[in-house]
C-alpha cells in the first residue's frame, strides 16, 4: 500500500511541478448546428449508419408495428421493457446470471432521447437488471418519444446529469465493423439490427 | 513623380543554380507591375535544408546573413512558398525576442501573395491556352495559407489560381486529391527515396488522368522532383513555375 501511495504522490507532484502556462477553460456556447426538422434529420442519419427509423403514432400503432417487425416475428426469446407494446417471453427478474441471456433474439428497450446530428439515442440501464441485454441480443429495438430529439451533442449533455453511480450510452446504429479491408459489415459482436421507433404523443 | 516601390529579390539557391529562367520570370512579372527589383548578390540560401535536417547551429549564421542582407528593403519577394515560410515561420528561433526581426518577417512575401495582397493585382494580361495542373506546394499552402487546404472547413480561395485564371485560354485540371504532397520534402526526397518517388508518381498519375499538359507550382523544388520522374519515365507533361506562366513564357 505504501508503494501505491508513493506512485500516486509521485505522479501528482510530477504533473504539478511542471510549469504549464495557465489557459482558460473555453465556454461551450457556440453557434452549433440545428435542424429545421430534427426527427427527419435523425432518421436520415440513423439510416446512414445502418439503423432504421420508424414513426409510430401511439402505443397501439407501435404494438402492431412490432408484431410485423421481422426479427420480432421470428424471435423465440424476447426481452421487452414495454410490455404494453410487446410482451417479454421470459421474466428478466428471474434471470440471475447475465450469461443466460446469450440466446436472446430481440431486446426492446426505451431510449430517453435522440440526437439529430448523429443518429444516436441515449439509453441507460436504470431499469434494466442486466445491461448486457442491449449488446447480447441478436436484434435491438429502441423506443424514443418523438418530442425528445435534440439538435446536437451540446444540447444532449445539457440534459444529462451524472450525479451518482450509473451507466448510459449514446447508441447509434447496429453493431458494426470495417476491420477487414474497410468493408462495412453490420453485426460485429452486438445486435445485427437496430430499429428506432419515434413514438408520438405520450412519453 | 511617384517613387517606385523597391523590393529585394530573394532567389532560392537551387533556382539560382538550376532554374535561372524562373528567377528572370519573377523579375519580369514584378517589373511589369511597376516594381523596382533589386537582387542582392551576397545572398546564398535561407538555410532550410540545414534546419530541416536538424542542424540548427549550421543554419543559424545563414539566417543572420539573410536578415542582414534583406533588412533594408521595404519588401522581400521570393518565388518559393517553402523558402518564404522558412523565413516567416521558422526563423524566429534564431532571433528570439528581436523586434526588428519580428517586424521584418512580415515584409517577406511569396511572389503570388505579394501580387494579390500587397500590389492588389486583380488580373494578369496574357494568354496561356493550355490545360494546367496546379500543384499545391505544401508550405505555401499550409504555412503561408496561399490557398485553403482540403482539410480545413472554410471558404475556398487560391491566390495563385486567381492570378493564373485571369490568363486567356487557361484551363485547370480537376484532381482526385487536390493538395496531396508530391514527396519532395527537401532531404526527404533522398532519405526516403522509395516513398518520395511513389508519392511523386502518384501525383503525376492524378494529373495525367485529369489531362494536365503543363504542371505548375509555386515551388520549383516540387517541380524539380516531379520533372525528374517525368523525364525518367519519358512522359510528355511539361513543368513550369507559376512565375514563368505569369511572365508569358511559351511551353
Amino acid at each position, binding site marked *: 500500500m505504501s508503494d501505491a501511495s508513493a506512485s500516486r504522490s509521485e505522479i501528482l507532484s510530477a504533473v504539478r511541478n511542471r510549469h504549464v502556462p495557465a489557459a482558460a477553460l473555453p465556454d*461551450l456556447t457556440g453557434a452549433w448546428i440545428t435542424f429545421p426538422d430534427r426527427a427527419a434529420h435523425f432518421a436520415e442519419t440513423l439510416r446512414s449508419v445502418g439503423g432504421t427509423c420508424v414513426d409510430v403514432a401511439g402505443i397501439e400503432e407501435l404494438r402492431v408495428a412490432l408484431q410485423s417487425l421481422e426479427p420480432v416475428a421470428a424471435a423465440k426469446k424476447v426481452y421487452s421493457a414495454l410490455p404494453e407494446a410487446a410482451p417479454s417471453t421470459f421474466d428478466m427478474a428471474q434471470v440471475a446470471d447475465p450469461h443466460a441471456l446469450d440466446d436472446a433474439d430481440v431486446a426492446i428497450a426505451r431510449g430517453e432521447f435522440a440526437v439529430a446530428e448523429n443518429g444516436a439515442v441515449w439509453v441507460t440501464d436504470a431499469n434494466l437488471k442486466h445491461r448486457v441485454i442491449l449488446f447480447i441480443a441478436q436484434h435491438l429495438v429502441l423506443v424514443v418519444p418523438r418530442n425528445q430529439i435534440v439538435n446536437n451533442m451540446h444540447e444532449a449533455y445539457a440534459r444529462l446529469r451524472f450525479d451518482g453511480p450509473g451507466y448510459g450510452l449514446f447508441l447509434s446504429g447496429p453493431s458494426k465493423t470495417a476491420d477487414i479491408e474497410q468493408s462495412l459489415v453490420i453485426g460485429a459482436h452486438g445486435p445485427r439490427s437496430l430499429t428506432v421507433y419515434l413514438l408520438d404523443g405520450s412519453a | 513623380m511617384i517613387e517606385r516601390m523597391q523590393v529585394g529579390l530573394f532567389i532560392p539557391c537551387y533556382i539560382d543554380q538550376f532554374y535561372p529562367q524562373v528567377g528572370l520570370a519573377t523579375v519580369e512579372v514584378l517589373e511589369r507591375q511597376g516594381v523596382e527589383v533589386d537582387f542582392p548578390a551576397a545572398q546564398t540560401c535561407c538555410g532550410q535544408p540545414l534546419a530541416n535536417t536538424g542542424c540548427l547551429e549550421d543554419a543559424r549564421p545563414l539566417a543572420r546573413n539573410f536578415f542582414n542582407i534583406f533588412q533594408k528593403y521595404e519588401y522581400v519577394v521570393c518565388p518559393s512558398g517553402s523558402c518564404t515560410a522558412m523565413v516567416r515561420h521558422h526563423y524566429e528561433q534564431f532571433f528570439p525576442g528581436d523586434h526588428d526581426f519580428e517586424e521584418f518577417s512580415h515584409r517577406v512575401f511569396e511572389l503570388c501573395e505579394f501580387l494579390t495582397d500587397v500590389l492588389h493585382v486583380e488580373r494578369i494580361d496574357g494568354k496561356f491556352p493550355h490545360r494546367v495542373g496546379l500543384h499545391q506546394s505544401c508550405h505555401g499552402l499550409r504555412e503561408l495559407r496561399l490557398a485553403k487546404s482540403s482539410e480545413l*472547413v472554410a471558404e475556398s480561395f487560391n491566390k495563385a489560381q486567381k492570378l493564373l485564371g485571369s490568363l486567356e485560354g487557361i484551363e485547370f485540371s480537376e484532381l482526385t486529391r487536390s493538395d496531396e504532397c508530391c514527396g519532395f520534402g527537401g532531404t526527404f526526397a533522398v532519405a526516403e*527515396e522509395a516513398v518520395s518517388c511513389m*508519392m511523386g508518381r502518384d501525383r503525376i498519375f492524378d494529373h495525367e488522368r485529369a489531362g494536365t499538359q503543363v504542371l505548375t507550382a509555386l515551388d520549383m523544388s516540387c517541380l524539380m522532383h516531379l520533372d525528374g520522374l517525368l523525364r525518367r519515365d519519358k512522359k510528355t507533361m511539361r513543368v513550369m513555375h507559376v512565375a514563368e506562366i505569369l511572365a508569358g513564357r511559351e511551353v
Partner: protein
Amino acid sequence: MPTPHAVRAARFVADSDRAHWHDQALWFVRVKRDRMAQSLPEWEALRETAAGIKAHTLSRLGDFLEQFEERAIALGARVHWARDAAEHNAIVLSILESHDVKKVVKSKSMLTEECHLNPFLERHEIEVVDTDLGERIVQLAGEPPSHIVLPAIHKKKEDVGEIFHRFLKTEAGASDPKYLTEAARQHLREKFLASDAGITGVNFAVAETGGFVVCTNEGNADLGVSLPKLHIACMGIEKLIPRAADLGVFLRLLARSATGQPITTYSSHFHGPAAGGELHIVLVDNGRSKILESEEFRRSLNCIRCGACMNTCPVYRRSGGHSYDATVPGPIGSILGPARDAKKYAGLPHACSLCGSCTDVCPVKIDLHYQLLTWRGEIGRRGLLPWSKTIPMKLLAFVLKRPWLYALAGRIARRVLPLVPRWLLYNRLNDWGRQRELPQIPKHSFREIYERRQRQSQ
C-alpha cells in the same frame, strides 16, 4: 545511411500493388472524414474549443486527477496509480490474481499496447483475448497493430481468410468479409461468455463526475464488461477532461475524424461499477508527465487517438504502420516515440515530408509537423544525428556562408556535371537519380544572368 524507417518503407513500397491498395484504403477514410467535417459549419470552432479544453486540463492536471479520483471512489470504483508500464502491468495482474482470473477479454486500448500488457499476462498464464475484430486479427497473426483505429488495415481479406482458416477453422480460401466477420462473431462470443474479467481502455475521463467514456463500433467493450463481474479500465493521465459537457465537443470530433462516422456506434458512459460488480481504474503516467514539461511537445498530450493524422499522412499511407516500429505509428507516433526513447526513434521525425496535412486534419489542433521539425532539431542538439547527415550539412553550411565560394562551386559544378558520363553520374550512391533525372544544368546561374542584364541596362 538510411533510417530504419526508410529501409522498412522501401520494402513496403517495393510491392507496388499492395502499397497502392494500402494508400487508397486509408485515403478513402480521409475522404469520409472530409465529408463529415464539411457537413459541420462549426468544425473549426469545435477544433479550437477542443484544443482549449485540453490546454486548460493540462495546466491543472494535478487538480483534475485528484478530483477524478475522489469522485470515482465516491461512485464505488477503485483507483490505482502507475508510474510506468511495469507498475501498470503489475497492478492489473494483482487485481486479476486476487479474483483468480484465468481468462480476460480486452477491448481496444493503446495504453495496454504501449505497456505490452498482453505478453506480460500470458507469461503469468492468463489468457487475454483482444475482442476488437482488427485487434483479434493481428493478435492471431502474432503482430502488433499497424494503425491505432484500424489495427489490421495492412491485411488484405485474403490474409485474414488464411489466418481465420488456421485458427478459427473457416473454409480454406474464404475471404468474404461478411463471412469472416460472422466467424469472428461466433468465435469471440464464446470468449466473451467464458471470460472472468473485462479490460477496456478509456477515451475520456471526466474530472467533475468521476466517470469515463469508452467508444467502440462493435460493442465489444460493453459486451466484454457486462458479462463478468470485474471491469478494469486502463487510462493514460492525459485522458482527463474537466466537465461532462466537454464530452459534447470531443464526441463530435472523435468519430468524424477517425472513420468519418457522425459518432461511434457505442459511446458508453461508466460511472461506478455495475450492480454487484467491481470497477478498477488504473491511471498511468509512463512518460506523460515528462512530455508535459516540454513547452514544444506538450500539445502532443492533446491527442485523442483518432488516427486522422495517419490516414492523411502521405508517408504513412505508403509505408505502412509497421515501418515505424512503434506502438503509435504515423505523425503523432513520430512525436511520441522520440519522447519515449530519442535514440531508438531518432529517425522517425525524418519519416515525413513536412507537408503539414496532419496539422490541418488534427481535431485537437496539435501542431504535428512543427513538432516533428522541432524534434529534428532536438535530435541534432542531442548529437543523435548520423554522420551521414551531419557531415554533408556541415560542408554545405561552409559553402553557403561564403557567397563567393557558393558562386564558384556552382560555376564549377555547372561546367563539370554535363561532362560526367551518365553511368558515373547515376551511380549507386546517387539516391536522387535512382528513379529520377537530375535537373538539366543551365550554362549560367541566375546571378550571372542578372548581373549581365543589370550591366546592359545601365
